[in-house]
């Protein structure tokens, strides 16, 4: 009997919505969407947490410019609040070193973080996840019963092909899907929207490729003023889950 598992439901009890940002491929903007979504929701006045579960390539801290802060210890671990976000990541423990973790290690590290982290009362917990449908996504579904998935893709047929597999698996596992955001749009096309309509998944909107986005990395104020962030805010405005009273 693993005494960590019994703690997990209780640790997430005071969180109204758990949203995992996922997608089929790397480099499609999942971490940028997760981090900017957390910032945007915090700016809107919501209580927000951000959990970076991309253990082998954590990047939310770099996007948001989070350095020099650490969780505090109080009958567990309390994530620091920075830029209005309660932020948790393996970088507090691994630093800037590579984390060469295999599947079983990823599962154990996730369970450990879920069991020791004491989130305050939150409206939203945004989870940044690694690409694909591996251990992290399977354990998110297994351990976080109330999780809902926000899927990111690009117009690339390569990304689209893999994201369709992710969506199929989520549907088979009966995991709720909020919908799909088409990121890094360059050429006008309705191909992704048509594909999503065909497989019965809500198409939430498209975000143009923002050539200036890179300049805002590490600066949360600049990030909120990018075209990317403004379009993301418009995109989520119509999604019921993001309209809390």
């Amino acid at each position: 009997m693993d005494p960590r598992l019994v703690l997990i439901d209780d640790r997430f009890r005071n969180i109204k919505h758990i949203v995992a940002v996922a997608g089929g491929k790397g480099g499609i903007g999942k971490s940028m969407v997760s981090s900017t979504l957390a910032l945007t929701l915090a700016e809107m006045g919501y209580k927000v947490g951000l959990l970076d579960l991309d253990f082998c390539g954590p990047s939310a801290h770099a996007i948001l410019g989070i350095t020099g802060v650490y969780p505090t210890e109080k009958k567990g671990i309390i994530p620091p609040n920075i830029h209005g976000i309660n932020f948790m990541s393996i970088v507090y423990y691994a630093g800037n070193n590579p984390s060469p973790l295999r599947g079983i290690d990823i599962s154990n590290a996730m369970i450990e973080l879920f069991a020791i982290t004491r989130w305050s009362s939150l409206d939203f917990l945004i989870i940044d996840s690694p690409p694909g449908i591996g251990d992290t996504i399977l354990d998110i579904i297994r351990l976080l019963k109330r999780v809902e998935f926000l899927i990111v893709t690009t117009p690339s047929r390569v990304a689209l092909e893999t994201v369709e597999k992710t969506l199929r698996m989520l549907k088979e596992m009966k995991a709720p899907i909020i919908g799909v955001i088409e990121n890094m749009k360059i050429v006008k096309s309705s191909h992704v929207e048509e594909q999503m309509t065909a497989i019965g998944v809500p198409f939430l909107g498209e975000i143009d490729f923002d050539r200036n986005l890179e300049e805002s990395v590490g600066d949360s104020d600049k990030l909120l003023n990018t075209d990317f962030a403004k379009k993301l805010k418009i995109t989520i405005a119509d999604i019921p889950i993001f309209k809390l009273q």
Partner: protein
Amino acid sequence: MHEWALAEGVISTALSTAKERGMTEIIGITIKIGELQQIDMEIFEFALKEINQPQRPMIANAKIEIEEEKAILKCRICGEEWDFSNVLNKLDEDKRESIHFVPEVAHVYITCPACKSPDFEFVKGRGVWLDCIEGY
């Protein structure tokens, strides 16, 4: 793992398991703790006593035994096996504390003493589990 979180998990798991087994009182539990967890036994035992107050009569009088299992690591590349305790003392306080909170970050700070690979497995001594619950 953090001692307080662990103590909370142990008591909750013992209670839910005892209820599943139709017990009305727990008289003893045995907890096994892997050395990799770097648990401070004094804090853990204090946390157990604090959490296990008389408001939980089902477990309040249980005798709690704690057994520690030595951690053995094995390289997946060259097959070398080594004791975790032999490398632990070479790590600074921050690294030891990081392993305490998330034991898997051992892969970040420890490498095989023979071939220097970080690709090793925990043969023994990782995790915490309730080994035995006695009651009626």
